[in-house]
């Protein structure tokens, strides 16, 4: 069983190493990830939002919907964990 797991891991390692050769270099301006919307954000965020911090502009404006989802997730997780932990404590006032 252990040998099988090791073999699977070895095959997976080979696959990953093979695929790694095709990845673009880090920070490559010609990479697909840098060609789509990134240039627009970098060039226009200051004039669009008056916000020098590009990260904040992307987080709260261009990707505001995503951030709304994150906030909902945090709220729901906190609420759910509180409800689970409250269970079994009767009706006592916290």
């Amino acid at each position: 069983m252990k040998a099988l797991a090791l073999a699977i891991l070895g095959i997976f390692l080979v696959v990953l190493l093979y695929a790694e050769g095709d990845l673009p270099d880090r920070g490559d301006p010609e990479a697909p990830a840098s060609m789509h919307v990134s240039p627009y954000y970098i060039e226009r965020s200051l004039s669009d939002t008056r916000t020098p911090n590009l990260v904040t502009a992307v987080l709260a404006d261009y990707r505001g919907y995503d951030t709304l989802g994150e906030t909902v997730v945090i709220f729901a997780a906190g609420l759910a964990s509180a409800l689970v932990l409250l269970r079994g404590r009767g009706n006592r006032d916290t």
Partner: protein
Amino acid sequence: MIHRYQGVVVELVSRAVVPAIQVFALYIITHGHYSPGGGFQGGALLAASILLLRFTQGRKESYRRFPPGAGFALAALGLLIFLLVGLASVARGGSFLDYAYLPWPWASPETLRYYGILVVEAGIALTVWGTLVVVFDQVGTRTRDV
């Protein structure tokens, strides 16, 4: 877990440090436009200040400063602010969360986006703050005083 710590140094130092943490948290939230920071980080700092109160000031005093139910209210209020900002821009004919359409017609779109980001960050901070304190209160009051 939550009982007054018997030590004058810890108590006095925490009393001095808590407001400093909270002011710094406000700086982190409002300065997110210009430096690393924003709602998530500032909210975590605000929660940390309340947890420090819980650890050092005892149940009675810290519950007087921040009631255990207030976390729920803050978290819901923060989320509500975020949603209302999004819906306000819909009301003026823009897309959801397009701050350029906030109901403040005499400001330029860039300025509206600037302030929209600020309000949304404040909402995020409230949600993170309330949620973290709520989770701590539920976990932290369990072990003792049942």
